[in-house]
């Protein structure tokens, strides 16, 4: 055995060394196939799905308050979600959104914080952030204070009904019944949103879907937890 072990060891190392080089082609073919496959599936299936995630034809076609601010070159996404809570509660969560307000966007906090976003879980309604003014700035990131790309501005709102932000990003609440609300979100995808069209298409658009759908589901989860307004004034 004492004679065999070193032989096996040397042989194993040799095989590993050869394998690293031999499987290079397989690795690169797999990576190329994965990238091409992902791009095709994304373009043909996923993008058409996420650009109108959960929205009906009527919701996609309907005019929203922020539409007048949307650039002619923009391609819009319209996403919608049914929330089993009154519009007043959904509004209370929506209105305090922002890194500089409640401390979060209700989305994938663990993902946002890979970019030093300093996002919190924002699991409580905070009376301090229940009031908005036109012109208020909402941060995506702490550097929003100095970098306008990392912040957005409130262009208008109608309490408990709609909020529209810079560029025409609209959040609309449609009461379906006393305890059910439809949240409709429209975002204008500008072709040069992220440096150039290719990067916008390959990085910004899919990432925006992940974060915006995460935010909408985050609002839904929080709003559906039950009575929670307490002393929060949601007029």
């Amino acid at each position: 055995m004492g004679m065999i072990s070193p032989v096996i060891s040397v042989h194993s190392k040799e095989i590993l060394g050869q394998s690293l080089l031999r499987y290079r082609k397989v690795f690169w073919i797999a990576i190329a196939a994965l990238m091409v496959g992902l791009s095709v599936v994304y373009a043909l299936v996923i993008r058409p799905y996420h650009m109108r995630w959960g929205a009906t034809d009527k919701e996609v076609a309907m005019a929203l308050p922020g539409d007048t601010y949307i650039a002619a070159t923009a391609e819009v996404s319209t996403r919608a979600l049914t929330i089993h809570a009154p519009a007043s509660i959904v509004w209370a969560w929506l209105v305090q959104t922002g890194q500089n307000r409640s401390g979060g966007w209700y989305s994938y906090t663990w993902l946002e914080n890979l970019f030093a976003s300093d996002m919190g879980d924002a699991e409580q309604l905070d009376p301090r952030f229940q009031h908005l003014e036109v012109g208020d700035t909402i941060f995506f990131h702490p550097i929003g204070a100095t970098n306008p790309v990392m912040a957005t501005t409130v262009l208008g709102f109608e309490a408990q009904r709609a909020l529209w932000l810079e560029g025409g990003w609209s959040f609309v609440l449609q009461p379906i019944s006393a305890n059910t609300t439809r949240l409709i979100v429209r975002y204008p995808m500008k072709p040069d949103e992220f440096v150039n069209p290719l990067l916008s298409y390959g990085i910004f658009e899919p990432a925006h879907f992940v974060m915006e759908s995460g935010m909408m589901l985050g609002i839904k989860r929080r709003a559906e937890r039950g009575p929670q307004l307490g002393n929060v004034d949601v007029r």
Partner: protein
Amino acid sequence: MAQSKHAPRIGWGRTAWYGAEAGLALAFLYALAFIGYASVRSTLNLLAARNPDGGLAGTLVATWIALALPAFVFAALAGILAAIIGALTALALRALLSRMNAAHTPRRAIAIGVGVCLTVSLTLLVVLTQGLGLTWTPVVAATLTFWLVLPLATYVVAGGVASWQVNRMMAA
């Protein structure tokens, strides 16, 4: 005679090429690891969500692919830098192995590789912390771990493996 016995069979150009290829490959492997991690975490988040109108299965698949595509595009871009670093590291290793490991001892080769990459990594950390004032705080802990600590750890481990490979080729 002695020179021809130890003359490396792998040239400088091929060494740089393999190094660049390894750097690019590691960028993609890191992206794959991220995609796996992000897919699991997003799945847990989505399973906790209640009945998305887009359908749970559709939302899950769309989220996985929407996470994977940017990660791959970013890996391809970051891979350019990784390829340059890989090529330069491989050339440095080949030069050091020629001078410091004439006997082509595998353990010594691995130690040289780890040592070189560790030195580069620590130098970068010193520059970032002392020169640019980067500090480790809870706010940036996840950011630094993801963008700096794990890539540098990967670089150090890869340096050991690459050095062993270059040494093996030189000894062949």
